[in-house]
């Protein structure tokens, strides 16, 4: 696959800042067309990934209470806006710019440089940035769900700046940025970011939920978990379907070129998602007696997260299996964190952190093709590749886990000490919408102002005044 090479070439472009005239690229018409097609496709893939923002917003809104619905939508809207700018100005340069410093553990370049309209071989920096910014926004927005219904908007806003400006970019530098994990004898492989993107979001979510503590009423005095049902399952499923659609930009787009490898990747993504949904439903059904809708939706997403890393390297049947296992994991993982009293209303830690790790490790077992990261065929244990890749993948996920939990943990603790991370008890009971944003997320018009049945909005009853 062309993927990695292209990252390389864009990098050089970003560094050298060749101001090649567009014309240049035009000389050979067929080359020019392929060049435009590559860029157009990656741009469109980026659009699909940005669409996932709507999916995350809906899933998170649906799985939380109506009294906090404006707040969660606002968090999703603003972490994207803040994240894109932070990534443009700082993050992108840390992830892809400048030389490999400290042996590929860091690097820097004025992010905006990567945003110059210079033409590079393969992808335009604008194309590459657009696609990468969509990924950064994804990593950032995953966290809001796990911290929902009790986090101060201001603190969340600050967090979303730091994760896209610093934490996620450092992970990028180590990996897609060509840093130390790419320079190992057996380089890491994470085709579309099971760990790089989803793991980063998932583990930051873990620290957020841990430091915040559970929502009031989530556990009884006796410490028994008490469900707090979300307020709109249709939002959850609609959101999951939008994420499913967006993933066809996320994974196939990570090929970073318009070539014949894109479609098999799409196919594996599709089948893994289906397998994840069905497995999660089946296990949850047997385990708890009834097929829970939001668990099935989590299963679909788990299938997608799981296949995100190995999608370039594995065969179709393996993708199905990896997705199915992802769907199985999510069911148990959600229960696991529940028992640990880590209150994650949407299951973000399980779907993105735990399953993302599984997806990344699965490469060590099932890798059959060279996904342009592995640098060789049959790297998987089941293809006689031995444990070489396993050690790399293990180092990868462990170091990543340590770094992200440490960095995010420090960030959230700092916020807690300074502006405060959690809203007051009164505010949490009343709901964040009114106290943080001025008015409720849902209106209730006919009849009584006050006591709105869904969230308590109200309208001045019309009078002739």
């Amino acid at each position, binding site marked *: 696959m062309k993927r990695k090479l292209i990252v390389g070439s864009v990098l050089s472009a970003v560094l050298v800042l060749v101001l090649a005239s567009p014309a240049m690229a035009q000389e050979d018409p067929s080359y020019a067309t392929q060049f435009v097609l590559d860029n157009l496709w990656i741009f469109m893939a980026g659009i699909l990934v940005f669409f996932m923002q709507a999916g995350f917003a809906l899933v998170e809104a649906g799985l939380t209470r109506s009294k906090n619905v404006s707040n969660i939508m606002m968090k999703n809207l603003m972490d994207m806006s803040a994240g894109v700018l932070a990534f443009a100005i700082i993050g992108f340069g840390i992830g892809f710019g400048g030389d490999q410093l400290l042996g590929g553990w860091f690097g820097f370049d004025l992010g905006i440089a990567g945003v110059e309209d210079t033409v590079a071989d393969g992808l335009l920096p604008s194309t590459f940035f657009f696609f990468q910014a969509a990924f950064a926004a994804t990593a950032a927005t995953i966290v809001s769900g796990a911290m929902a219904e009790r986090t101060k908007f201001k603190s969340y806003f600050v967090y979303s700046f730091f994760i896209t400006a610093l934490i996620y970019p450092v992970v990028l530098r180590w990996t897609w940025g060509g840093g130390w994990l790419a320079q190992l004898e057996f380089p890491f492989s994470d085709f579309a970011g099971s760990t790089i993107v989803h793991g980063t979001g998932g583990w930051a979510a873990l620290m957020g939920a841990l430091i915040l503590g559970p929502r009031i009423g989530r556990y009884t005095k006796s410490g028994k978990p008490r*469900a707090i049902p979300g307020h709109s399952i249709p939002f959850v499923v609609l959101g999951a379907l939008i994420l499913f659609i967006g993933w066809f930009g996320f994974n196939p787009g990570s090929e970073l070129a318009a070539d014949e490898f894109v479609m098999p990747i799409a196919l594996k993504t599709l089948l893994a998602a289906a397998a994840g949904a069905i497995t999660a439903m089946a296990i949850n059904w047997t385990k708890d007696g009834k097929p*829970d809708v939001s668990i099935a939706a989590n299963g679909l997403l788990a299938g997608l997260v799981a296949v995100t890393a190995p999608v370039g390297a594995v065969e179709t049947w393996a993708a199905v299996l990896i997705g199915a296992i992802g769907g199985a994991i999510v069911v148990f993982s959600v229960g696991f964190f529940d028992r640990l009293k880590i209150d994650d209303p949407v299951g973000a830690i399980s779907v993105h952190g735990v399953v993302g790790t599984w997806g990344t490790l699965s490469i060590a077992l099932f890798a059959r093709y060279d996904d342009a990261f592995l640098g060789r065929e049959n790297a998987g244990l089941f293809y006689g590749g031995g444990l070489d890749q396993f050690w790399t993948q293990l180092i990868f996920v462990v170091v990543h886990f340590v770094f992200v939990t440490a960095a995010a943990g420090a960030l959230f603790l700092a916020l807690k000490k300074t502006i405060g991370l959690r809203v007051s008890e009164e505010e949490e009971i009343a709901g964040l919408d009114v106290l943080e944003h001025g008015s409720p997320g849902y209106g209730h018009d006919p009849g009584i102002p006050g006591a709105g049945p869904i969230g308590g909005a109200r309208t001045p009853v019309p009078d002739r005044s």
Partner: protein
Amino acid sequence: MLQLVTAVIQPHRLETVKEALTEAGVAGMTVTEASGFGRQGSHTETYRGAEYEVDFIPKVKIEVLCTDDDAARITDTIAAAAGSGGIGDGKIWSTPVSSAVRIRTGERGLEAV
């Protein structure tokens, strides 16, 4: 004088009760959504693998303003129409009313009903 007959019934019986009352010549009623707690007890629901108790069951509250003489008849009518024999069918009670007015006309007492 007047009485206010109040009934708490199963929501899906409302239609039947309304028809019965209309046949019984009741001109009007006021209905409110309510939740009931009682012998019917609670049930558990599951959500994302966790359980939670639901001990308030949806009910409908019917209020009928009527004359003392009609009160008993109306009570029986509702009881007959609302009864499914199952636990949780609800209750009916009546309270004395000291005065009543029809806003539109200002009619008072019996005329107000």
